[in-house]
């Protein structure tokens, strides 16, 4: 099992600059979608979609509802397969892998689901789940130590024995976040991490996402409807519209964009093509 090899140990050193990547010089792509097409029944979601997300950054995927942002995350995770085209993740093509072969890639990925997807077991067991699945060799003590370390990091120290049903929306979200990152994933996918949360709680979640990415130099891909919030932590933004990527660039470039849809969407103005 590839557990520790691809990921550098958590390094409390100075945060890496946005441009830093595991292979200095050439910016390596953590995710590369090439000519991807996908349809749900009669509804064409993507036609020839190309998207390249560099390693070691926080990427924000934005766009109006139902343009395929969450679908993109599921393609990257291998939970869905494209009808045509190639999906490369962490240097490997995954769209033609079997479910079992996908396992090796997924061990290097973490995902925070929109509904948190917490299991009906204690908070501690939820966070321990990836560790137990990835490496049978970890001792119980190691697992417990890593779980409590991770829970402390999301400000939920001592919550091990609680049941998910007892928690508030923001707390569940943080448990999901702890579970997604406990195995030191090289690529973490966040599906609407702040949906339905108030501005203060949202900002706390965003800070955690950013802090985690900086500390492990991993890659984060965040899908969010809260455009203003997600732009505060992103290094790179991709905007989806009508099945295509209509904009990629830095948050500042997004705010300054003259493309009408992008401008209207980012600034939330009423007049425009949307």
């Amino acid at each position, binding site marked *: 099992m590839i557990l520790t090899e691809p990921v550098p140990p958590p390094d409390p050193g100075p945060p890496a600059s946005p441009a830093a990547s595991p292979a200095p010089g050439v910016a390596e792509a953590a995710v590369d979608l090439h000519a991807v097409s996908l349809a749900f029944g009669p509804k064409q979601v993507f036609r020839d979609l190309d998207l390249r997300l560099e390693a070691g950054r926080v990427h924000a995927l934005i*766009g*109006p*509802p*139902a343009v395929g942002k969450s679908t993109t995350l599921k393609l990257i995770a291998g939970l869905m397969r494209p009808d045509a085209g190639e999906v490369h993740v962490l240097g490997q093509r995954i769209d033609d892998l079997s479910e079992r072969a996908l396992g090796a890639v997924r061990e290097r990925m973490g995902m925070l689901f929109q509904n948190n997807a917490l299991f009906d077991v204690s908070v501690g067991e939820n966070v321990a789940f990836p560790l137990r699945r990835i490496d049978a060799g970890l001792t119980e003590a190691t697992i417990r130590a890593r779980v409590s370390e991770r829970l402390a990091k999301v400000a939920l120290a001592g919550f091990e024995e609680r049941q998910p049903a007892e928690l*508030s*929306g*923001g707390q569940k979200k943080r448990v999901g976040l702890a579970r997604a990152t406990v195995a030191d994933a090289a690529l973490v996918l966040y599906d609407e991490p702040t*949906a*339905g*949360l*108030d*501005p*203060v*709680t*949202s*900002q*706390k979640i*965003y*800070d955690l996402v950013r802090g985690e990415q900086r500390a492990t130099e991993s890659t984060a891909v965040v899908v969010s*409807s809260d*455009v*203003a*919030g997600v732009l505060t932590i992103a290094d790179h933004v991709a905007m989806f519209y009508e099945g295509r990527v209509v904009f990629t660039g830095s948050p500042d470039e997004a705010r300054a964009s003259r493309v009408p849809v992008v401008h*209207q*969407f*980012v*600034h*939330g*103005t*009423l007049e*425009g093509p*949307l």
Partner: protein
Amino acid sequence: MPIRFANVHKSFGAKEVLRGVSLTIEDGECFFIVGASGVGKSVLIKHLVGLLRPDAGDVFLDEEEVSRLSEHALRPIRKRCAMVFQSSTLFDSMTCAENVALPLRKHRGLGAADALVEARRRLAGVRMEGFADALPAALGDGLRKRVAIARALTLEPEVVLFDEPTTSLDPVSARRTDQLIARLCRDDGVTAVVVSHDLSSIFGIADRIAMLYKGGVRFLGTPEEFRACDDPVVRQFVRGEAEGPMEV
């Protein structure tokens, strides 16, 4: 129809949500109830139409004590005081037009066909005439919200309660919804009570704001006062900062 909450308490099991909320909302106001997630904003406004009943305290609508009325006696109140839910609550087995036609059929005595004609006219009022025959499941959140607003307005209510009207909407749809609410207050003299934590809406259209915190009213005033307030909890909320005294 002035609205008054008098020392309202409400608990769910062991969880005390409201611990003595007192508020007065004037006629024709665009009144915002704001606060962190789970602080009991929706719980508070559901008391106004009798969907929840207080453990202690009273809720008055036009000097009528809503909290004491039976389900049957609440009906006239509910015709005058409409509610737009966070999840829109459109009936998913009916088309948009049928959704809007239902209260017309039930309360205006219109026949099924007449009600549908009138419903289409109402949908045109929120620029949804093109979706009259679509099922709600086929629409996005923003469009569903507009149909829900059209449905809530069918009986020409004097008060409309909006529960998080812009949550989970993209920025453009959110501002469109704000505009619709503002127009209701300005042009039709409707009292709007809006539950929200969307800062753009709050500073965009609110006449007055009440902020709930830990089961009570922490702040009450105009948007300008809200922005200038030096209470650290209010300030943290207004700025949307992660660090601060606010417990969430």
